[in-house]
């Protein structure tokens, strides 16, 4: 089964590469490769570290005097990042209105900034509500009160 998947996958992949080489000149193939490569680098070297930094920032901002983290707010923050982060990224083409054209009155014909703000508000409220339930975090609070001690990173 595994060998079959790998061989079939390799053949399909090869067909895609052949299509790519076949449909256009070399310059176009190059720009497809550059687009894919830049996308990988943007994720691995920019987006992923930025999310790590956000996680670190959340711990700093939500620290309690006793060294714990405001757990419910931390939970809500994670839900907000998971939902609003990807949705905002995928809306870049409409938020940036890059293809706006006065001649095309039915393209990009919404107020995207207001729409995004409304959506963000709805996501924040939903995240806070979710954090109050046990649906996304431990139902039985850990330790006394609203905060819990989080072990310091090991090294």
């Amino acid at each position, binding site marked *: 089964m595994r060998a079959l998947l790998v061989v079939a996958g390799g053949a399909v992949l090869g067909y895609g590469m052949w299509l790519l080489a076949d449909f256009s000149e070399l310059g176009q193939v190059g720009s497809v490769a550059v687009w894919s490569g830049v996308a990988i680098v943007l994720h691995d070297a920019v987006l992923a570290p930025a999310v790590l930094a956000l996680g670190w920032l959340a711990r700093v901002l939500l620290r309690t005097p006793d060294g714990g983290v405001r757990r419910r707010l931390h939970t809500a923050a994670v839900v907000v990042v998971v939902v609003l982060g990807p949705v905002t990224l*995928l809306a870049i083409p409409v938020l940036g209105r890059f293809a706006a054209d006065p001649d095309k009155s039915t393209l990009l014909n919404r107020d995207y900034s207001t729409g995004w703000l409304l959506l963000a508000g709805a996501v924040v409220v939903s995240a806070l509500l979710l954090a109050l339930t046990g649906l996304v975090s431990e139902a039985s609070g850990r330790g006394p009160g609203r905060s819990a001690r989080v072990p310091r990173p090991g090294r």
Partner: protein
Amino acid sequence: MSLTMRIPDQDSFTSRLRSPAVAARIGLWLGICFGIAFVTGLISHYAQASSQPVPIPTRPVWGYRLSQGLHVVAGTAAVPLLLVKMWVVYPRLFVRPPRRLAPLVLTVLERGSIATLVGAALFELSTGLANAAQWYPWSFSFRGAHHAMAWVAIGSLLVHIGVKLPVIREALAHDVDDTALDAPGATEEGPVTRRGLLRSTWLAAGVAAVAAAGGTFPVVDRIAVLAARRSGGPGGIPINRTARAAGVLTSATDPAWTCSIQFGARTLQLGYDDLRGLEQHTTELPIACVEGWSASGTWTGVRIRDLLALVEAPADAEVAVHSLQQRGGGRLSVLPAHFATDDRTLLALELNGERLSLDHGFPVRLIAPNRPGVLQTKWVARLEVLA
């Protein structure tokens, strides 16, 4: 994660959310979304091909609308799934490669297939989203590249599933909180549980699908705040290319405009009033764009079949529909014989009871069932029977 400055390795990432148990569950849905997008994408690509060895049926009339709607919804929902999946497996990027040659070669091959998969997946999602907003910040042909890279993405996905199959099977067979497959250092409790991360991810995929891709569904349209279009426009149908953009402002409003029907040596010229004088038919058909939006309209006009009968064209002939448009896409489409003779294939003069607007293709446009919008030629100048 360690805050000291050194090259991280897999153990630098301590969250127990970064587990194969989580990755396999998100990966399953990601694979389903990619599968739907791939199949519906192939359907769309085939529907736009200049010839179809296996004919596309004319029914259901909403077939292309559904297929392309699914394509865009699945692709949009895949964005949060892919990003969270990549967050979960990110520490794998820092696994130290083995030093011995044989395992090293295997590792290089596996990493290579992952790079191809991630590169092709990000390419498909980013170009697809940009295309839905008609933004083309690249030099390659969108349709050709999006099609070719879809095969690359699905091929690498099959290889990836083949490589990971034992892990996937074990992960899916046990509870999501099972730690048997976890990296040794991934033990730190986080602000959300694994189930919590999964639920947040499903929520993200749902929000993405509704907010960005929901514009095509009448009721959802109201809350699709990030969709590139909203339903509406003249006659309730959006416009992709205006008469001005197509360069037909003068020719389409010329009182001397006629539509010619050609079959071999026979040519018939019909003016606007001639077409009005022929038997009119009314039918409800959607315009479904490759960009995922669609809208239904009530069209009134002359059956193509009746026009072909005027020049005694054979019933099994294809018909080329030429536009007044001199350049750009959509200026020519070929109707296969079974589309040309279909009851509901019209040369439309009216949309929703009103004269066709200039931007919708005045004086006349083609409207046929179950076809991509780009093939519903506007500002028709000539029907040519290809005998």
